[in-house]
């Protein structure tokens, strides 16, 4: 059984894996960013009715969430430059499979790291807006928490780029 299943896996074209990786990198990152923005935005709007002074400062939370989507776009652009064509005879070579999997993994890393980062920053941003409305000295302290949260997305981007850097397709046979 295992040999036939692993053969099934290796028969999928590495282009498929690579393309799906690129899709996940941008798609899931944007999901995370959007989720985070609506979580923080709805609280921010409601709290700003009573305390209008918080709006300009708390847009930083929204910007941190947006940065997560930008990471996803950047990595997707980088990944798509790594997609090369290989001749048909080499398409299922171990080297090509490795390149396909590397791009796929890179996409997943970036996508899900940014998803979680976006959620994290969004929830903290919501609490930040509500606390700032009550007591303006709290804003900077909670911002530190948000900065740590957004570092998570950066970790994902770094590892994703390292993964994709070694995604080398087999050289064309002469």
């Amino acid at each position, binding site marked *: 059984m295992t040999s036939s299943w692993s053969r099934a896996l290796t028969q999928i074209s590495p282009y498929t894996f690579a393309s799906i990786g690129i899709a996940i990198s941008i798609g899931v990152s944007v999901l995370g960013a959007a989720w985070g923005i609506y979580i923080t935005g709805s609280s921010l709007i409601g709290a700003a009715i009573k305390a209008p002074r918080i709006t300009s400062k708390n847009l930083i939370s929204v910007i941190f969430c947006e940065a997560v989507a930008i990471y996803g776009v950047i990595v997707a652009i980088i990944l798509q430059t790594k997609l090369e064509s290989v001749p048909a005879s080499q398409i299922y070579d171990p080297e090509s499979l490795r390149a396909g999997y590397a791009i796929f993994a890179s996409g997943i890393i970036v996508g899900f790291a940014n998803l979680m980062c976006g959620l994290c920053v969004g929830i903290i941003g919501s609490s930040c807006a*509500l606390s700032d409305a009550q007591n303006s000295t709290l804003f900077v302290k909670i911002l530190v928490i948000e900065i740590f949260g957004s570092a998570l997305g950066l970790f994902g981007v770094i590892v994703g780029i390292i993964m994709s850097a070694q995604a080398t397709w087999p050289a064309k046979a002469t």
Partner: protein
Amino acid sequence: MERFRRELDSRPPPREGGDERVGEGERRVQRDWNEREDEKPDRVDFKVLPEIRSFDHRIHREEEGEAMYGFEALTFNIHGGYLEAIVRGYRSGLLTAADYNNLCQCETLDDIKMHLSATEYGPYLQNGALISHSSSRCGSDSVSRICADWRDSGRHVLVSYIPDQKPDSDLFLCRGIAYQPMEKGAKPSPLHTTTIVEKCTLKLLDEYKHMLCQATEPLSTFLEYITYGYMIDNVVLIVTGTLHERDVQELLEKCHPLGMFDSIATLAVAQNMRELYRLVLVDTPLASYFSECITSEDLDDMNIEIMRNTLYKAYLEDFYNFCQKLGGATAEIMSDLLAFEADRRAVNITINSIGTELTRDDRRKLYSSFGLLYPYGHEELAVCEDIDQVRGAMEKYPPYQSIFAKISYGESQMLDKAFYEEEVKRLCLAFEQQFHYAVFFAYMRLKEQEIRNLMWISECVAQNQKTRIHDSVVFIF
């Protein structure tokens, strides 16, 4: 205590010795929940307690997009984020200890009004303005009729129409604020304490209506549940007033605005409970609470009080079950708040019925079937005959022991204040957590406490008894 110990055994107690334990005037404890009134009950059988739903609300909560307990932050803000932020904004407008200190040092009611005008109550306390306020669900024709009435009497009218939340309904939520322009040289009318309290309650009403407009299910149902208590109070007020032959209009003005409903004036016509139910209450949300107390008896003072407490008991249990269905942090926090409310009402019922002709069984029927005191505390409270026995029954429960420790033996006046303080403490704690509905409930209760404080302060100032001001003012922050 032997009785309880034996109940916890797995063997049933010997029947022959049973009657000797029971005292002369005491009836055997009736287990209403088992509904075996003809049998002598052996032991408390927890499997058949019908009122309490399972506490496993952490599982099976993922219907309709609800998140698991602990993950509500992911989906709460879709529908509730804006309103939660709004209610927290309202909470920041509650009077602080500094405001209360200013108010306590006032000499006259005009001073109080001046201080209050500097707080959030300012727009509501303007003289010559806001003399008539109406917010009700009504059809569009009655809205235009209301506006025509107001305009005819020389008032400026500001009306906003908001379509009702329920689908396929052509009702509008009509908010009308009528301003009477001050004539030149006219003296402002003298200020009464009731005026101040009315205007402050109007503010609460406005805030509530604003939130209710914006809410979707299940938050809108939750907000409506909060007002059923006021509805019950209004019903009892009108029925009692009619019994003592007061004018219906005068009674309607005294009703709490949050508990108004259409056809409330028809309550004055009813002669007994069955008519009350059939004519008026069957169309209100209170209809389902009436199943336990429909009798053909005429309404007199005692029966009305029993009716009030029975309705309130059914309401609390209904609210409790609704919150359990909501699950998550709402269920947890609301359970605690509602359990405290149920226990406090049990103690108040006990103390108020000491020395009256309310039998122990009737008393027991008025206790809610949830809360810290349920079921053993209720059994002890049901047989209490004076305050010290109540204290003895309550001191077994650590949260209530601390309340009773604040008041000395034989005294019950400070008990109310001690309960209010404990309630305020718990309500403030509800704001510590985000992404749940209990903040709405907590805010309404805190605002009610603030209005009670203002009423007490105004009364003390008006009657020149400022030494007693601190007897009953509960500081919120």
